[in-house]
């Protein structure tokens, strides 16, 4: 904005300068476009600041007049209500501030799970839609058209009420691989690390570091000699193999906490509540349809000449896709992909409709209502979504900048 104003102000100034050149007196500051524009900007900022100050001041005064409590003291008060699912220790005796954190973590959990699933599914579908196989291409097209065009809320309801609600009761659970599926959720055995499991974890991270060095070495070698090294296969071998070997040699240091039906519900194991499953399925499936279209657009944006050139060089189809098409398509795909990730994160607030304890349900729901401090609670909730979105978009912009085509 500032450059705009000063630029447009510059031209008449530049034009009039030669005429009034001989008597060189300092122009009055209001005749100096630079200072003038600065003045206007300061005035505008002051006015804006005043407007916000008035809004906040008036709100506070009026809230006080109505006898409504304000401020953030409530965050340290005891919450006194239970939450169905929490990633951290939470009891009814925890504070309202803790309900904020529990809700926030649950929101992040669903967002991350959704983003991973939607990305994988979306990329497969996007590539599949361009497949030469008629059946695969049409299936993908059908999937995209169906799921993209049904409102997300309805899809959540579908998964929750029509699919997961109709599962059998705990006593008649569907049992497989030591896990149980019923209308209370999916209960899987929980891994319990024993002595020596730390070694396995260290092996895992060690393998990751080793893979990174191998990748660097192989890149250098390829630049120097042109010889290729199977980096990906080696890395997978290392990352899976090393921890596995360590795990076997240290005497399987991992117990399983098997779920058992006791009383009303299963005790032990990890319970994935149906609300989470429904929301995850709906969000991933819905967003995947959009991501698929983005991926398709990205692939189509790579000129056909590139593919033909690759074929002319004798590259296989898979290799062409992996080495020629996808790296170039990514440049087109990343920015709209970011939008989809942001949408997914924000859409996860629909959780409240089926009672998944996310930030909106727990904090902007129960906590808001029990404390009555709507303005503070909603402001905090909005700030969270804003921050999450900004972080996602910051990361994606960084990644985008990295993979941009560097002109040589």
């Amino acid at each position: 904005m500032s450059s705009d104003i000063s630029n447009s102000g510059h031209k008449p100034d530049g034009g009039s300068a030669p005429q009034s050149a001989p008597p060189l007196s300092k122009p009055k500051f209001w005749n100096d476009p630079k200072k003038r524009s600065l003045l206007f900007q300061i005035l505008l900022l002051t006015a804006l600041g005043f407007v916000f100050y008035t809004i906040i001041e008036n709100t506070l005064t009026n809230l006080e007049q109505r006898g409504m409590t304000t401020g953030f003291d409530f965050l340290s008060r005891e919450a006194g209500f239970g939450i169905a699912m929490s990633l951290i220790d939470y009891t009814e005796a925890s504070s309202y501030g803790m309900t904020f954190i529990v809700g926030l973590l649950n929101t992040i959990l669903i967002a991350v799970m959704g983003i991973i699933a939607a990305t994988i599914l979306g990329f497969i579908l996007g590539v599949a839609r361009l497949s030469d196989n008629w059946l695969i291409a049409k299936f993908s097209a059908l999937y995209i058209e169906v799921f993209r065009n049904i409102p997300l809320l309805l899809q959540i309801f579908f998964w929750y009420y029509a699919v997961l609600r109709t599962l059998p009761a705990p006593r008649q659970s569907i049992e497989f691989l030591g896990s149980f599926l019923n209308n209370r959720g999916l209960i899987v055995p929980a891994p319990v690390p024993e002595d020596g499991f730390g070694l396995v974890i260290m092996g895992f991270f060690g393998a990751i570091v080793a893979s990174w060095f191998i990748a660097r070495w192989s890149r250098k070698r390829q630049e120097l000699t042109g010889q290729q090294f199977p980096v990906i296969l080696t890395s997978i071998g290392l990352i899976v193999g090393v921890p596995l070997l360590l795990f076997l040699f240290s005497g399987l240091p991992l117990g399983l906490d098997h779920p058992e039906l006791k009383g009303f519900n299963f005790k032990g194991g990890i319970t994935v509540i149906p609300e989470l499953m429904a929301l995850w399925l709906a969000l991933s499936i819905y967003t995947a349809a959009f991501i698929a279209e983005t991926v398709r657009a990205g692939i189509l944006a790579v000129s056909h000449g590139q593919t033909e050139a690759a074929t002319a060089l004798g590259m296989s189809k898979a290799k062409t896709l992996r080495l020629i098409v996808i790296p170039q398509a990514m440049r087109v795909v990343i920015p709209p992909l970011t939008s989809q990730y942001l949408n997914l994160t924000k859409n996860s607030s629909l959780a409240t409709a089926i009672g998944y304890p996310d930030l909106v349900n727990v904090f902007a729901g129960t906590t808001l209502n029990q404390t009555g401090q709507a303005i503070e609670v909603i402001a905090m909730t909005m700030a969270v979504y804003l921050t999450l979105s900004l972080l996602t978009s910051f990361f994606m912009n960084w990644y985008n900048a990295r993979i941009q085509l560097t002109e040589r």
Partner: protein
Amino acid sequence: MKKTLISTAVLMVAMTGTAMAGTLETLKERGALQCGVTSGVPGFSVPDDKGNWKGLDVDVCRAVAAAVLGDATKVKYIPLNAKERFTALVSGEVDVLSRVTTWTQTRDTQLGINFAGVNYYDGQGFLVKKELGLKSVKDLDGATVCVQSGTTTELNMADYFRTHGITYTPVVFDTNDQAAQAFDTGRCDSFTTDLSQAAGLRTRMQDPSAVGALPEVISKEPLGPVVRQGDDTWFNIVKWSFNAMLNAEELGLTSANVDKMKAESSDPNVKRLLGLDGPKGKGLDLADDWAYQIVKQVGNYGEAYERNVGKDSPLGLDRGLNALWNQGGLQYAPPMR
């Protein structure tokens, strides 16, 4: 959520302005009372098959409309869930909140609202499937319980289970209807809410006879109409509209006999209630016959009780605590003089 956001936005804007016109003037200008009700609790506020709202809470709205506008039908019902209700009231979206709302200290003193009376003395209970053969709330150890979010119910349950060392998993829904349905389809082992609402919601379940309430009543739930703080005239109007219904029952005035009584009765209490004598509508800024209009168009408290939740309704609840004070209950209105 959307509603909460909108209400909060309205609240922000409303709080930004410096002064608010009196509720009574605004209402007379508008020509209709805006009344916040539930999104469907049988017996308290629920639309019938023709779309007319019916219920004990609805009758409070109708009584206020009759007193202020002389016409009990001039009410716009705004369904709110438990989470939206106070924000909607304070931001001015509704004039009265008559929505099975429990009177508590926090709500009365920190939310900028006032409770104008108690139109139903209730308590919290637990519904379970009879086939489980449970005898007491203490048998619910390890159970999953469906509950509506943003209610005192949610807090009472947490308190009760915590003090009795019972473990449980709450599954929280936006409306009581959803919570009841989730219980019905087996998502939860139990459903907890105020017993009167449980009785109403039970009638809608697949097999109401297979569902029973556990004997414990774990809380006091005085439910009543609520108004914004800071408008005392309006507070008085709502308070006395309800008191008029109670006093009418005590004096034996019903919608059927009120015209006859008005013409014939020489009882000074009746005369004062009907506005022929005494304080009339003066202090309330209402027409002198405001209480007459309530009794004529809505009826007394007993009539409202019996047709909505009592023996003339599918709920069939006894008067119990909600009988008049001189009949062994708690309902007691200050005299009109």
